């Protein structure tokens, strides 16, 4: 979603299939912040990416008045702290904020790597079986986190979409793709009723709809990533 931005001067260097990029796109949409979207070329990595994120050389990179901010979790908090009118992303209570940060780190450090293990790295029946067990367990933990954080309301953030909704929700396209590829539902009414209801609400939000990709569209990217991984290990 590209829009000319003069007053705020915001640009996002990202990639449409990247959940970390999607995270920021949704946040900017939620806050009604106009921005220019710059699609990263990847092979090879653009000069802009290498210059603005020399340490990690990864998207997303947010540019605010031409100053780069890297790492999606850092960017989300930056956006929340600079654009303070309207909806807050992080909870206002300090304890709830600490809990939100904790679960965001769990999702990024434990849940998503389990999903990547299942869809990209695991080879052979045994490895796939082990990876599936791990992602199912991790998803059960996230269901528990949803129950704790939502406190009976619609979203991780309560009545409105918040930080954790973005942190987990950005993976929905990839989660759906994993379910198709492996032939197992990860979100079910019996095991994860909270998350099943949440997915419907989250996905139908205008800020989210145009950003999260259909699994079929991500298939080509998945094949590319698997090919790259296989090439690097032979």
């Amino acid at each position: 979603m590209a829009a000319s931005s003069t007053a705020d001067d915001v640009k996002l260097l990202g990639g449409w299939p990247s959940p970390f990029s999607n995270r920021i796109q949704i946040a900017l949409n939620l806050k009604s912040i106009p921005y220019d979207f710059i699609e990263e070329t990847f092979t090879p990595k653009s000069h802009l990416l290498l210059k603005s994120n020399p340490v990690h050389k990864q998207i997303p990179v947010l540019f605010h008045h031409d100053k780069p901010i890297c790492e999606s979790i850092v960017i989300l908090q930056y956006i929340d702290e600079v654009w303070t009118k309207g909806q807050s992303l992080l909870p206002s209570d300090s304890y709830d904020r600490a809990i939100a940060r904790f679960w965001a780190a769990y999702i990024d450090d434990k849940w998503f790597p389990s999903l990547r293990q299942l869809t990209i790295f695991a080879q052979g029946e045994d490895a796939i079986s082990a990876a599936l067990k791990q992602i199912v367990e991790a998803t059960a933990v996230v269901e528990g986190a949803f129950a704790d954080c939502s406190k009976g309301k619609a979203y991780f953030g309560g009545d409105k979409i918040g930080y954790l909704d973005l942190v987990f929700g950005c993976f929905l396209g990839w989660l759906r793709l994993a379910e198709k590829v492996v032939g197992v539902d990860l979100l079910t009414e019996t095991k994860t009723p909270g998350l099943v209801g949440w997915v419907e609400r989250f996905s139908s939000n205008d800020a989210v709809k145009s950003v999260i990709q259909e699994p079929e569209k991500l298939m080509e990217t998945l094949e590319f990533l698997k090919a790259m991984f296989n090439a690097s290990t032979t």
Partner: protein
Amino acid sequence: MATSVVKLLGAQSSPYVNRVQIALNLKSIDYEFINENLAAKSDLLLKSNPIYKKVPVLIHADKPICESLFIVEYIDEVWTNSPSILPSDPYDRATARFWAAYIDIKWFPLFGELRQVKGEEAKAAVVEKIVEGLVLLEEAFVKCSKGEVYFGGESIGYVDIILGSYLGWVKAGEIMASVKLLDETKTPGLVGWAERVLLNDAAKDVVPEPQVLIEVLNKFMMASAKASSN
């Protein structure tokens, strides 16, 4: 006897615990330190941090907060007395969080690699990566300090605490691997900073001496070897 409102579950040899201690000291917060035997974790720890079962855990009015980076931010947000730990400017805050994540996720794990690597060539390769990281952190120090003595400027801040808490293990690593990591020629700013930061009132006597840490490590490795051979 009144129960303390602020408790810290920890072990002195853990840099992650040290960083919380420094933050609490900086804010002059009274707290009860509950020493954990990491080989036999307490019920309180297992109940307070069921996901990771790790120290540190800060317990504030009976509510547990886990993960050292988030504990330090929590302390800064709840105790708003001076000094501030995170910078006030959002861009500087983003920069501080960026470097904290780099230090924890990319840089310090190299010390684990250094301990386990076999052979001189492989060891030299890891040492090179650690020093490259320090050169990046030197640049960060110059930019963040803006001519002052700490990453946080005039007083110690978030990155000072996050990186400073590792200094005991950095020195232990230098001794065990017989290498110099903090080098006057490559990272002069950081060498000066490293000498200064642990002398700060809040950090004094928190980070253990490298020899103490080497002993802790040796005990741990012997216990692991024994456990795996039984």
